C-alpha cells in the first residue's frame, strides 16, 4: 500500500505535480499558495525538471504558453489577483489550444482584499475572465487528497483536449493538513506532434497561434473550439452526491463550502431534516443535468458559497425555475459555521412552508 502522508494542500499539489511528470513549473509568489513554488524550488531540480520563479504572473503564464507549446507538461499556480493578471495569457492559451494546468488558490477580493480563503473567483473561472469565447475545464478540490488527485486528472484532461485546465482551490484547502496518498500513476500516451520542437524535414512546420486574421478562418477556429467544449460538456461532468437518495432539500456547494455543508448536513439530519448534498467537482462542465433531475425531487435547493452568489446562477440555470434555489454566503474571508447554515436552512424551510 502507498504510504499515507500528512501534508498541506499546497504541498500535496506540488508533490503530485512531480509524480504526474510535470516538466516545468513557472510561478510568482503570492499568499496563500507560495508553498507550491517553494516546495518545487526544493524538489524539482532533484528530478531535473524546470522550476522558475518568474518576474510576474504575466511572465509566468506566458512562459507556460511557451513550454506547453513545445509539448511539455507545464503548470503555474497563483491566487486571485495573480490569476486576474493572467487573463490575457489564458485566453491566448485557450485560443492556441495548449494543454496546461493552472491553479488558483482563491483568496477574498476584490482588489487586494485579504489573504483569507474565498470563492469569489467562480465567475472568472467558469465564465471566462479573459476575452473571447473559450472555456477551461475547472476542477474544484475539497480535500488535500483531491488537491493531489486533481493534478493528475488536470494534466490528463488538458492533454486529452488540448485545453487549459484550472484547478480552483482556496486558501483553506491550500493551507490545511490532511492525510494524503499518492497513487501510482502512468502518464497516458498523447500525441503532441503539433508541438514546436524544431521542424524535421519529414513534416511541415508547426506553429502555435491564436491569430486567424480572416474572419472566415477565425470562425472555423471558433467552431472547432465550440465542438471541443461540447464534447467536454458531454463527457467530463463530475460531481459527488451525499444523502440525495431520500433528500427533501439539497445543499449545492463546492470545495471548502461543500465540506462545511457536509457538517451542516450531519447536524440537520440529526434534527430530522432530510437534506442531501450535491458537490460539483467540475465547475465547468457543470452538472446541470443531474441538478435538473434533482429539481423534480427536492423542495428547495440551498447554494452555499464563500462569495456574494455566483455558482447559484448555474444552479438556477439548471433547474429552470422548477424549484426554489436559495443562496447563503459569507465573504471577505469569513467562514459560515455549520450551525449558521443549518439555522438559515431552517428559516428557509419555514418560509417555503408558510408560502
Amino acid at each position, binding site marked *: 500500500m502507498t504510504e499515507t502522508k500528512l501534508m498541506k494542500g499546497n504541498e500535496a499539489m506540488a508533490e503530485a505535480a512531480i509524480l504526474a511528470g510535470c516538466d516545468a513549473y513557472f510561478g510568482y509568489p503570492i499568499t496563500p499558495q507560495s508553498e507550491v513554488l517553494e516546495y518545487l524550488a526544493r524538489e524539482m531540480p532533484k528530478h531535473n525538471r524546470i522550476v522558475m520563479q518568474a518576474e510576474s504572473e504575466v511572465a*509566468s503564464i*506566458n512562459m507556460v504558453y511557451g513550454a506547453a*507549446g513545445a509539448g511539455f507538461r507545464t503548470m503555474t499556480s497563483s491566487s486571485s489577483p495573480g490569476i486576474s493578471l493572467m487573463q490575457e495569457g489564458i485566453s491566448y492559451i485557450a485560443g492556441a489550444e495548449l494543454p496546461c494546468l493552472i491553479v488558483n488558490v482563491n483568496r477574498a477580493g476584490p482588489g487586494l482584499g485579504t489573504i483569507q480563503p474565498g470563492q469569489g473567483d467562480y465567475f472568472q473561472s467558469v465564465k471566462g475572465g479573459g476575452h473571447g469565447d473559450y472555456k477551461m475545464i475547472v476542477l474544484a478540490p475539497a480535500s488535500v487528497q483531491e488537491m493531489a488527485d486533481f493534478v493528475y486528472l488536470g494534466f490528463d484532461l488538458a492533454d486529452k483536449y488540448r485545453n487549459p485546465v484550472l484547478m480552483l482551490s482556496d486558501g483553506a484547502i491550500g493551507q490545511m493538513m490532511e492525510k494524503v496518498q499518492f497513487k501510482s500513476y502512468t502518464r497516458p500516451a498523447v500525441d503532441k506532434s503539433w508541438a*514546436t520542437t*524544431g*521542424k524535421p524535414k519529414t513534416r511541415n*512546420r508547426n*506553429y502555435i*497561434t491564436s491569430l486567424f486574421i480572416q474572419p472566415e478562418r477565425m470562425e472555423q477556429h471558433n467552431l472547432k473550439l465550440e465542438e471541443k467544449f461540447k464534447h467536454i460538456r458531454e463527457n467530463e461532468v463530475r460531481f459527488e452526491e451525499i444523502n440525495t437518495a431520500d433528500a427533501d432539500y439539497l445543499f449545492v456547494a463546492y470545495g471548502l463550502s461543500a465540506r462545511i455543508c457536509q457538517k451542516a448536513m450531519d447536524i440537520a439530519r440529526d434534527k430530522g431534516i432530510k437534506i442531501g448534498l450535491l458537490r460539483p467537482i467540475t465547475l465547468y462542465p457543470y452538472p446541470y443535468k443531474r441538478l435538473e433531475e434533482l429539481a423534480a425531487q427536492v423542495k428547495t435547493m440551498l447554494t452555499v458559497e464563500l462569495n456574494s452568489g455566483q455558482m447559484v446562477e448555474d444552479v438556477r440555470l439548471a433547474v429552470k425555475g422548477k424549484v426554489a434555489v436559495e443562496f447563503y454566503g459569507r465573504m471577505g474571508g469569513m467562514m459560515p459555521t455549520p450551525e449558521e447554515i443549518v439555522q438559515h436552512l431552517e428559516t428557509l424551510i419555514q418560509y417555503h412552508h408558510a408560502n
Partner: protein
Amino acid sequence: MPTEEHVLPDTALDVVAPACHDEDEYELVYHKPHTMVDVSMHYCPGCAHSLVHKLIMEVVEEMDIQEQTIGIAPVGCSVFAYDYMDIDMQEAAHGRACAVATGIKRLMPDKYVFTYQGDGDLAAIGIAETLHAINRGENILIVFMNNAVYGMTSGQMAPTTLAGMHTTTSPDGRDVGYYGSPIKISELMAQLPGAFYVTRQAVNNANAVRRTKKALQNAFKYQQLHKGTCLVEIIGNCPSNWKMTPIEASKFIDEEMVKTFPLGDIKVPKAEDIKTPSASSG
C-alpha cells in the same frame, strides 16, 4: 556611417550557392533562402521586416539549423512571421515573446530559440519580460526591429520614437518634456550582466545588410556556446507610417535615426569568452 560601396559579396553569402548547371558559364550566387516559405509577404513595399526575415532565414539555412530552431513572433506587423519562416514557431501575446522564449528554451536548452519583436512590443508593453529575460541571461537571441513607431496599429508613438517625430499620437512631434526621450534599449540592456552580445545595426544599404547578417551569425553562434542573451537591434524603416518612400526612409535612417541610435556593437564578448561553451543552465 560607411555608405554603400561597390563590393563583391563576402564569403558568408556564398555558402549555399551551388554551380548553375543549366547555364554553363553562370553560377548562382544569391537566392531566396530555402528556409523561407514560398509565398509573397504581406509587408508594405520596402518594409525592413521582410528583409530581416530573409537574413535570419539565410543564417538558419547556412548554419543548417532549421530543424533545431524555434522562433517566436510578436504582435506587430511581423505577427505573421510564421507564415514566412519555414521553421517551428510560436506567436506570443503582445510584448511577451521573451517570456515565451524562456518557456521554450529552458525546456530545450540545445535548441536555437529567437524572438523577433518590434519596438512597441519589446520596449513598451514587453519591457519587463525583455529586461528580466536578459537579466537571467536566457540563452536566446532577441531580434529587435526598431522602426520608431507602432507599425501595425498605424503609426502611433513608440518608446523609441525620435524627439520631435510626428506620429498619430504625437501629432505635434514627440515632446520629450511630456513623454521622455526615446529609450536606447541596446545601451540599457547591455548594462545587464546577462547580456552577452548587444549590437545595433541597420538594413538600409547593402553593406548594412551584410553587417546585420554577420551580427545574426554571431548571435546564433554564441547561442550554440550557451553564452547568454544576444540582442540584435535593427534600425528598420516603416515607410508607410513615416509617410516616406522606401528610399526616403533609408535616407532618414542615415540622417536622423542614427543620431539617436548610433549603429555598431554595444557589447561584444572578449575573445577568450567565446572559445568554450558555458553550462547550459544560464
